[in-house]
């Protein structure tokens, strides 16, 4: 399997707090890679560093053979990493369809002139944007909600919409920040089917999740963060049995 993303020696400080320390990960093409850890372990910080939202203090990230730009989220998206957010960030007053259409921004290019004069290229591109957005809504299973305002969608549908919007940017790597947070058992089960389907369609997925059962059942490989450091990176069965992981989650007495 070829390597898609290689993070090497990532460090990030917030004032005196060392949120990430020398974190190195390798994500291979076509796998679901889980990133777990107790609250405050640095999972979301790593996510934000990876997607360019936070500038990193140390370390290198190579993505698809290219070094990843620093501190510019839109370039990271254009390079092929799309993300969702732990606390859903949709464009609340736009319809579901429009949300996904915004996701096409990075892969389309008509400018002001094209829009004002409504050139043939603009009309073709606009139709293609809309068609692709409809396909993606269908893919995540909320095609019937296309014309509803994003804020009026149910929680589970909002999560799905966020995934559809991320997919619209044509990512090589889809990074999901706690997609199952706040979901009930039925919603989690159908989310699991959706994520497994993404892998079957050839996408690489990075998954941050609290739901250990979901991660262990779904992921090909798992890394565990604790106090900003990676303590293990292996297949789920090995990770589950590792005493350091049990200690990180349950405390020293339990191990």
């Amino acid at each position, binding site marked *: 399997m070829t390597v898609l993303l290689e993070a090497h020696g990532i460090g990030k400080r917030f004032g005196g707090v060392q949120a990430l320390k020398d974190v190195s990960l390798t994500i291979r093409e076509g796998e679901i890679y889980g990133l777990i850890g107790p609250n405050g372990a640095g999972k979301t910080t790593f996510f934000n560093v990876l*997607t360019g*939202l936070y500038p990193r203090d140390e370390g290198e990230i190579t993505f698809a053979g290219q070094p990843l730009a620093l501190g510019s*989220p*839109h370039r990271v*998206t*254009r390079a092929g990493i*799309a*993300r969702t*957010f732990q606390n859903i*960030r*949709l*464009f*609340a*007053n*736009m*319809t579901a*369809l*429009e949300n996904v*259409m*915004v*996701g*096409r*921004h*990075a*892969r*389309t290019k*008509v*400018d*002001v002139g*094209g*829009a*004002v004069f*409504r050139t043939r290229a*603009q009309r073709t*591109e*606009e139709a293609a*944007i809309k068609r692709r957005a409809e396909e993606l809504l269908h893919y995540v299973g909320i095609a019937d909600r*296309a*014309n509803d*305002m994003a804020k009026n969608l149910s929680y589970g549908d909002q999560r799905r919409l966020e995934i559809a*919007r*991320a997919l*619209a*940017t044509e990512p090589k790597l889809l990074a999901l920040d706690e997609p199952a947070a706040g979901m009930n058992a039925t919603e989690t089960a159908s989310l699991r089917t959706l994520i497994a389907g993404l892998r079957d369609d050839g996408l690489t997925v990075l998954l941050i999740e609290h739901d250990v059962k979901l991660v262990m059942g779904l992921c090909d490989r798992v890394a565990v963060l604790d106090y900003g450091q990676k303590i293990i990176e292996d297949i789920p069965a090995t990770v589950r049995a590792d005493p350091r992981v049990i200690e990180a989650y349950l405390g020293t007495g339990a191990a």
Partner: protein
Amino acid sequence: MTSLRTKPHLGLALIALALALLPFVVSATLGNAWLRILDFALIYIMLALGLNIVVGFAGLLDLGYIAFYAVGAYLYALLASPHFGLHWPVWAILPLGALVAGVFGVLLGAPTLRLRGDYLAIVTLGFGEIVRIFMNNLNAPINITNGPKGIARIDPITIAGHPLSKSLDVFGFTVPGLALYYYLFLVLAILIIVVGIRLQDSRIGRAWVAIREDEIAAKACGIDTRNVKLLAFAMGASFGGVAGGLFAGFQEFVSPESFGLMESVMVLCMVVLGGMGHIPGVILGGLLLAVLPEAFRHGAAPLQQALFGKTLIDPENLRMLLFGLALILVMLYKPAGLWPEPRHRAELKKS
């Protein structure tokens, strides 16, 4: 109603006919003063549509928008008046005005990219004042703007050799100058409306709204928020620049006092009152706020005379009082504006 709905072209033709006849109806029934107010209303609509791009679409609160209007107006004044002895044609000045105002828009936008909401409002307010104070003081050591005295004897807008300030005989029928201005402003306002609608329904327009809704998510969608915001400032400013040029040619006089903070607030009120981000609402807001205060100005004194036999409240004070009251009522009962964007946009309905 059903026949109009099945024949949209007929409805459009009726609206066009009504708009074409409007100046004659107004000057015959209400007089030329009202035709002049109508001309100003069209200028204000153009301004409001420009500000709507910045505030309504991109969600960037701009309190110094009138500065771009000033830039367009002064550019026209300097290039078509005896002040410098230049007499450029209007069709050269207006595009230049749009361009120069657009550059000013980027100049304002660039240092404020990280600001939002209240902070952005304060900085843009300062920018508006800076431009006005420059206009006030650029008469020494080199006299560029003629200071507080303003620039007078500006060339009227001239099309095909005919100055629009003079009436025109068409087949023995006299069209007054104010009506000629009305037609020119109407055409340009429609042009700006079309440009606004097309921008809104495009990749760029969606990116603006995305930034308004959630800037971080917009970045994560691959939108270069810096460039897209600067584009909003530039586009909005260029609309203001065109409106300013028309204002200068129409008034044939400009002075810094036309570009004070109250004017910025007034244009912002048009956008907010009408319905932020909704083009028909913004047009309604511009029309109402341009016409209603004038109606009070003209109607308040005679009405008080008729009712009480004397003028109890100065019409100017009454105007501001009622304006304030109207704003409070709208914010209480229609916080999204008088004509907000419908929840479901027609273009997205299954066709």
